[in-house]
């Protein structure tokens, strides 16, 4: 409803995203971060919070966090520290989380999202801060068993997390989802995180309220609600759509405005498709943050920043633009290719380089390679046809050896058998039809179809289509385009 230009309010959305960094070990100890291990097999005195243990920062975690912040155009603080965020929860063994409070390592960035189909105007979303902290463990409660015990697995406790907080710059649920897709793509491209939501390596909370213009010109703002428990980007969009409608209805009933009650937390109930109220959020001062005395400061100088920056691969936004200018493809095409990941772009560029043509390569990627990948599953690295092999096939089509539909059959055979185009062509009895054969065939067709010839001479050029099917029956290898062209040429020569 808020997507409609006539909606009587503006939707204001900000996101808080946590991503697990792709390190081998935890943030402050050498325990593995491998997902899926049996409970409490990746724990040690440090991540269990046992007395006498001390944290030591993982170099790679800080490097990945820096990479993420730089890619999000953040300013990097020359000096940063960590703080203890105190609260009691069974999955937090120390009784505090090591996080960053007043001196996060980065702040004030932005990331733009552009919809190539123009569903919304490009939106540059401000990033308030990116900071580095540790994850908590996992609580499991089997309500069905009704035993009354909650089981705690601390394998995840101490896993490095980047917290990314945006400005409330998003204006619709659809934008929020698209922006999250862009963020995920960026972090995956840079090798910062695998962003696997099923495994919890990317988690999103959303803050939302409505700005409602009043007859007196004042803008009424509804109380901000934080939504949790969204397990996919689709859920984020659905939850925000639901919450937009709920807040507008509540506004109409209560006229309650921001500040009239504390910030509310609501959980998204996916099966029911609704948000439900949760306990009131503790004030941030209730976390009694204070500097973590067990960790020393971290400083970053210009040389270190330059080193991180030079080691970074092209982020998606730049890669899209590069593909458009390098290969003369549309924004839509570059978006489809880049969204499939770095490896697929690598395949495309090799293919385009080999045939010297971007648009044709892009079409083959989207219509044939991607479709085949979707049908067969698997990744582009394991694709049975190499870029060079596909380039060979495309060159034969361009040379007129056979038409595109014949080429698709050959391609399918190359995929299943893993053989080269030349090999497949030989076994399928496909051979190029030379000019003499083509001429003879066309003469035969015209002699056998006086009605079509007459129609074409009468100005109905499309009647020539009737000849193509017959040509294919006589010789499966003929190129329909060439048959059509040659027949028309012969008919025109009749005067």
């Amino acid at each position, binding site marked *: 409803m808020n997507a409609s230009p006539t909606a009587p309010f503006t939707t204001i959305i900000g996101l808080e995203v946590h991503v697990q960094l792709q390190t081998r070990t935890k943030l402050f100890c050498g325990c593995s971060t491998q997902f899926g291990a049996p409970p409490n097999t990746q724990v040690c005195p440090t991540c269990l919070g046992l007395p006498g243990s001390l944290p030591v920062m993982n170099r790679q975690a800080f490097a990945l966090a820096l990479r993420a912040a730089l890619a999000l155009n953040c300013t990097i603080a020359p*000096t940063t520290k960590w703080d203890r965020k105190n609260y009691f929860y069974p999955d937090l063994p120390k009784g505090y989380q090591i996080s960053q409070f007043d001196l996060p390592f980065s702040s004030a960035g932005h990331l733009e999202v552009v919809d190539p189909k123009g569903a919304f105007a490009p939106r540059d979303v401000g990033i308030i801060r990116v900071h580095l902290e540790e994850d908590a463990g996992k609580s499991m409660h089997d309500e069905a068993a009704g035993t009354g015990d909650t089981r705690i697995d601390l394998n995840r406790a101490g896993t490095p997390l980047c917290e990314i907080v945006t400005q409330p710059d998003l204006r619709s649920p659809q934008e929020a989802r698209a922006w999250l897709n862009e963020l995920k793509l960026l972090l995956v491209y840079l090798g910062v995180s695998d962003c696997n939501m099923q495994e919890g390596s990317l988690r999103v909370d959303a803050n939302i309220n409505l700005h409602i213009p009043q007859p007196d010109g004042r803008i009424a703002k509804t109380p901000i609600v934080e939504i949790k428990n969204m397990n996919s980007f689709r859920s984020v969009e659905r939850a925000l759509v639901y919450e937009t409608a709920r807040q507008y209805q509540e506004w109409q009933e209560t006229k309650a405005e921001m500040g009239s009650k504390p910030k509310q937390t609501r959980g998204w109930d996916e099966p029911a498709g609704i948000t439900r109220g949760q306990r009131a959020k503790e004030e941030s001062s209730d976390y009694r943050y204070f500097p973590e005395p067990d960790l020393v400061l971290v400083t970053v100088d210009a040389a270190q920043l330059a080193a991180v920056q030079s080691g970074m691969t092209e982020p998606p936004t730049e890669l899209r633009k590069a593909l458009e200018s390098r290969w003369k493809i549309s924004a839509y095409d570059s978006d489809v290719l880049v969204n499939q990941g770095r490896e697929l772009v690598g395949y495309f560029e090799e293919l385009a380089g080999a045939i010297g043509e971007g648009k044709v390569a892009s079409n083959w990627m989207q219509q044939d390679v991607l479709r085949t990948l979707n049908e067969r599953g698997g990744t582009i690295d394991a694709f049975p046809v190499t870029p060079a092999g596909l380039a060979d096939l495309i060159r034969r089509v361009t040379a007129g050896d056979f038409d595109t539909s014949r080429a698709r059959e050959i391609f399918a055979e190359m995929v299943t058998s893993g053989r080269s185009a030349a090999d497949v062509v030989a076994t399928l009895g496909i051979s190029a039809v030379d000019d003499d054969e083509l001429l003879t065939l066309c003469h035969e067709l015209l002699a056998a179809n006086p009605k079509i010839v007459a129609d074409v001479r009468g100005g109905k050029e499309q009647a020539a289509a009737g000849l193509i099917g017959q040509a294919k029956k006589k010789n499966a290898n003929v190129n329909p385009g060439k048959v059509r062209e040659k027949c028309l040429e012969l008919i025109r020569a009749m005067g």
Partner: protein
Amino acid sequence: MTISRQDVAKVGLLARLALSEAELDTMTTELSNIVGFVSLLAELDTSHVEPLAHPLDTHNVFRDDIPLPSLTTAEALQSAPRHDGECFLVPAVLNESGAA
């Protein structure tokens, strides 16, 4: 800065300390004394002193991202008041985690 009885009650609650009425009184007096003592520092002119974020002069202490052996599950669980051989057991927690 003075510490009120209410401040002490709130901090006590956050620290999960069940303070009796008498203890609240004692704590309020003692905490006020401590804070009062520390507030002597506020009399110093620190306008020309760089803020100090950590008392140690060293910085950038890192370790490499190399896995080290963890404890066995039995070792990890041995001091737990209750466990089931795999997990720590705690009284039912039904609401959502307090923070991320």
